[in-house]
């Protein structure tokens, strides 16, 4: 049964008429056209779909609209200010943190949430926080280097 939900995404409010158990990921991509957040598995096991929801890195594929309603959501599209990249985004470029890049929005959102909480996170903490973000290009060395660069700078 469809109902109306209000979600705030990247500072903008949207009213969405949809099913309460529909995943936030689908709404972001299909209803709002925010395709930067990716589908990788749909079961919470790859974190390609990571957004920041009320400050927490969250898998949007297993977050229902009922849960997302009234929350503050940030997606990859909201990270840069104009042409000014966020330091984590810049670090991914500097350290070649991408091959195909499909996992990268999720990686960047996970790293951003981590570094907001712990701006100088140790390597151990970074690995602990990021190891659920799969990269099938297996570019883990460079991704780790990118997050470490951002951790030193922020």
């Amino acid at each position: 049964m469809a109902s109306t939900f209000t979600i705030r995404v990247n500072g903008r409010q949207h009213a969405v008429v949809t099913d309460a158990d529909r995943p936030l990921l689908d709404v972001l991509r299909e209803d709002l056209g925010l395709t930067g957040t990716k589908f990788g598995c749909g079961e919470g096991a790859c974190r390609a779909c990571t957004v920041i929801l009320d400050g927490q890195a969250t898998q949007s594929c297993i977050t229902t609209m009922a849960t997302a309603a009234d929350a503050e959501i940030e997606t990859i599209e909201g990270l840069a200010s104009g042409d000014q990249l966020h330091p984590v985004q810049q670090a991914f470029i500097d350290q070649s943190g991408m091959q195909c890049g499909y996992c990268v929005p999720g990686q960047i959102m996970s790293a951003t949430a981590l570094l907001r909480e712990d701006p100088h996170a140790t390597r151990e903490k970074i690995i602990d926080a990021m190891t659920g973000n799969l990269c099938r290009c297996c570019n883990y060395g460079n991704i780790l280097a990118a997050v470490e660069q951002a951790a030193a700078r922020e």
Partner: protein
Amino acid sequence: MSNQSREFDVSSLREESPAEFERYEFREPPRYVFAADRREFVGALGAGLVILVSPQGAQAQREGRQARREERLADRLHVGVDGVVTVFTSKVEVGQGARTQITQAAAEELRLPMEQIRLVMADTASCPDDGGTAGSRTTPSTIPRVRNACAAARARLVEFAAAKLHAETSEVQYDGGAFSVPSGAATTLGDLAADRKLIEALQAPPAADVEIRSVDSWQVLGAPAPKVGAVAIVTGRHRYPSDVQVQGMVYGKVLRPASYGATLKDADLAPAKAMDGVTAVRDGNFVGCTAPTSWRAAQAVEAIAATATWDRPPHLHSDRLYEHLQNTAKAEGGGRRGEGRQWGDWQAALAAARKRLQSTYRVAYIQHAPMEPRAAVAQWQDGRLTVWTGTQQPARVHSELQNAFRLEATDVRVIVPDTGGGFGGKHTGEAAVEAARLAKAAGKPTSLRWTREEEFTWAYFRPAGVIEIDAALDESGRLTAWDVTNINSGGSAIDSPYQSASGRTRVLAADAPLRQGSYRALASTANNFAREAAMDELAELANVDPLDFRLAHLGPGRLRDVLVAATDRFDWRSRRAAGRSAGVACGTEKGSFVAACVEAAVVNNTIRVTSICQAYECGAIQNPKNLLSQVQGCIMMGLGGALREEIRFADGQIVNPSFSSYQVPRMDDLPDLDVVLLNRQDLPSVGAGETPIIAVAPALAGAVFAATGKRRRSLPLQI
């Protein structure tokens, strides 16, 4: 022969013929046969294509490779009035860095900064057919072709500028898009492009004697150029195939068989059709729905699935896989011609062995599992079909669509946006065909993205294999016979680089229970694993260090060089002397050379890889940054197949079709990674997206043996 001309040896232009593909390239019948529709036969030549460099572009495509050598510059590139040169190639970017490297190649020969090159990839309406993206062919084959065309274009532009500036060609100074002559007159690329006569000047094929820049004066190639398109990726703006959205689009979903080989007896579409905005279609064994959201489309298909009845044939259990492959091995026909060979009297040598090794090695079925599953958006306009999809083979998908819908070649357009991973797993057009069929039923553009479970079940797999090795040593510990048989997993790299007085190689086909196809380095991973693991066992029989045993059987050359480079850097001898658990392996495939050293520990029955040192050599390095990233990625991906990845199946279904049950490498698997890149500027560049994957598994097996004293002869390595 000079280096330069070697790079353009015409034989390199022939290497992409279909015969050169691995044997697992598909020769299967189409999955769906759709009913004919009379209107389809009326060809509608209407609205032009967005980018059409020349009317001959499509013609050249249909004529395939033959047309390539007569390729006209106008088919390869277009000079814009803004001074930007647009270059066209049918190659795709799936993360391996082709976009960046081809851009570098064009910039190098056109003497332009990379920002002034726009590369259009894999649009069948506008790109000349450079073949699919497979077999590490982009670097040795497409890059030279692009350089050749760009160098020829530069020469033409200089001639054209000379005429315009009333000077001799030899007087024209050209660099970075600006032309000047001694009189002081000057012009730019953009100005030339505004002159309509330029189009004619670019029509003829490039001259045969065009000069390309030699390696020692490379400016753009050879440098660590950053990835083209990186900003769009980190900001989420890049649209992967699954992100393409067109006006009025709906979402599609297909009903999958209940198990492998199952045929649909009956299904009721009514419950789906009753849903708001849903279109349901059945065409032969194809059943699918479209809806305003993918969520609703999935519900609609579930509603049909609940009514569906199937005939389900029996299907092998993965527990019996290897015995099944051995029992069904056929005497012939497993490899390409030339893969089976014999030299010397290997039977006599085996019989006379002082020491003999007879070992059987196994490799499991594994899945590519690219992060972006198969996806396509299909749009019909006036009987013409445009499909955006993620595939490594745009031309093949083009003909799949043409055949499925009985269309003229010119009525089908396939566009491949830079895609979220391939690894040899996206050579087919299932999603494209399905999206197109659904779009036709809905009368609306349709987006279809496979679920992870669909990708794990209905894509294809790297073939499982059984490899038997029978080898003999004489009293001095030298190999005298080498007999290797690969059952089912293919022949790449089956030729041993080690000296043996006699031997035999065989590649046997078997009855494969799963749909199998290409994979990054495909059979070479299996054959290299078996051979290197056997070399370790033989070294033990000969009572020699595994490195020394290898060196004793290798002549001088590129393989020996990487082996020495890796073991030196890793400090092999001191680690071994200190009793550390280390393993070594090397190999060659597709013209490049790799050696790896691995140190690992086994704790609580789990392998923990602590450090890897790998040396790699692929000729002159075109982009060290991208190369390093590819090599590191290959090592980590190779660890997945060595440690954990294994597809299991029962009752015609995959038992572990998810990332929670099929465990791919993660960041916490990352060991200390040390990569040594040997830059052989005196040798032609070859592709590096595959071969660096083949050494890590056997080196790890050696380390695990050192740690536990037990041989593991299967991938993944079982503890």
